[in-house]
């Protein structure tokens, strides 16, 4: 090899090895910024849904964020039908976060819960993360004109005015892009769910 080529090769090889070494040294620091093992270990929450009375909404903390548990009455479940034209994504197809593995039938895509009466959803507005308020009474009686005249009952986010129905499905013409997210949960007992 000529001297010049040899020198260029050594220069490139040495700087290349140095660059790879530096990148490797950055890796543990990037890993250290990820949640620690104990933080991840604290990421499941158990909840007994039978403590929620019919028509009542309870908020459960999971990973430091609120989760809605709503005990829907048969009327509430019936009212979920018939306002699909008001909704942006009535069958929850838009993104993976609004769906779940157990959502198999059309009915499950409407009720968005494993047991229809117990709705378990993330309480975080998909717009910028506020917690929406709950008002199951249809019409403008309770909230006035901040909700549309044909309001079927549901959740209203006061921060930027997003609306969701009693299945957490987002309305048209509001800032929130998606339905309220489904959280991973399962029944570990007849009335006990494990979130996470």
């Amino acid at each position, binding site marked *: 090899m000529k001297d010049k080529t040899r020198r260029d090769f050594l220069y490139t090889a040495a700087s290349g090895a140095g660059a790879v070494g530096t990148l490797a040294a950055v890796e*543990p620091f990037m*890993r*250290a*910024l*990820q949640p*620690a*093992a*104990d*933080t991840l270990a604290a990421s499941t929450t158990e909840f007994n849904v039978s403590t929620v009375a019919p028509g009542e909404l309870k908020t459960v903390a999971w990973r430091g964020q609120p989760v809605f548990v709503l005990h829907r009455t048969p009327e509430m479940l019936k009212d979920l039908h018939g306002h699909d034209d008001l909704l942006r994504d009535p069958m929850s197809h838009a993104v993976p976060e609004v769906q779940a593995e157990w959502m198999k039938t059309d009915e499950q895509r409407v009720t968005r819960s494993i047991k229809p009466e117990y709705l378990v959803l993330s309480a975080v507005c998909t717009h910028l993360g506020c917690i929406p308020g709950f008002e199951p009474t249809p019409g403008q009686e309770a909230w006035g004109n901040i909700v549309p005249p044909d309001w079927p009952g549901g959740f209203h986010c006061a921060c930027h005015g997003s609306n969701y129905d009693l299945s957490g499905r987002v309305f048209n013409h509001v800032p929130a892009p998606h339905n309220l997210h489904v959280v991973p949960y399962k029944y570990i007992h007849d009335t006990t769910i494990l979130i996470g």
Partner: protein
Amino acid sequence: MIDKMLDSKVAGWVDDRTHLIRYIRFHLIDYPTPKNLNYWYAFGSIALLILVLQIVTGVFLAMDYKPSAILSGGGFSVAFDSVERIMRDVNDGWLIRYMHAVGASAFFFVIYLHMARGMYYGSYKKPREFLWMMGVFILIFMQAIVFFGYLLPWGQMSFWGATVITNIIGAIPFVGDWLLQLVRGGFSVGDPTLNRFFALHFLFPVLLGIVVLWHVMALHVVHSNNPVGVEASEKNIIPFHPYYTVKDLFGIGVFLIIFCWFVFYHPTGFGLMIETDNFNPANSMRTPADISPVWYLTPWYEILRSVPNKLLGIAGMALAYVCLFLLPWLDRSPVRSARYRPVYRSLLLIFFVSIVVLGYCGHHPVTPMLTVVGRTASVIYFSFFVLLPFIHKFEKTKPLPEDI
């Protein structure tokens, strides 16, 4: 490639507005250096690298560390638990903490060699007196920083080390008690002490960084000395880049291999870098059998311990630093390098040995034998500075070369 980058239009645009590119050229590329600098001259760059490593690892540790002496659920303290959490639960937290702890020892090791180099080649002499004094200041600053930092894990050594050292302040006449409470924020080392030490352990390194930058800028005004100690002629001057950037990078490579060996195989440095007793949580009701500072503080601690009087001991330790500050004026010989000064060379080597002996004694519990050895070493330490103003009168220096 570097030249291409610095000559680019973007670089020119930035330079016209900030002078950034000409600072880089002046300090890192064109900086004129004598061509005979040996590997002893790499310790400055290595120390700079360690400073950066300490700041980076320190910031990451601070993200998970909690400075609280309040009892935790497990019966230890929040601070101790948070350190253990870093070691067990935080991803790669053990690595970052050990890098930080070994880094502290490495920093002192490298700085002591850096200073020994300066003393051996007479780098403290005119026109580099101020550069030397800044260096001594940096050393004292570093000692304050590790002292604050060593309290943070809130182990037995943290607690009792801080108790003993802060008590030194209490011995200062008239204002001692007042000053002691000011430092501790209470009647004893406790939660307020831990909180303020954490704040100071964060603040001081930032200030240290500024002083270090000033130290480097000042060096580039008076330029590097060299092993021969005479001014190099024009033809023996070479630019810093690529000659010393490459040489320093090689030195850094060797350093990192040793550093990694400690981090991965002996992170506690055989009980010297993290003392074994510090894995026990702090207990204000029980003093460990043997308290000694970490190795890099032991020589100064031994001088303090050698004097059988509390106040005079502190004065002795302070005098040890003052002597270092005054070194450029105590040494009156016009010849710089010890290579041409046989008497100075012998005295200096004995001086170095005395510091190692002081360090050894300071690390071990007091025995009658070690007390005698420690006192002898202390006397030798100060004798060096006492003799220094006189040796040029009878020392027969070897003939100096015209050029390097």
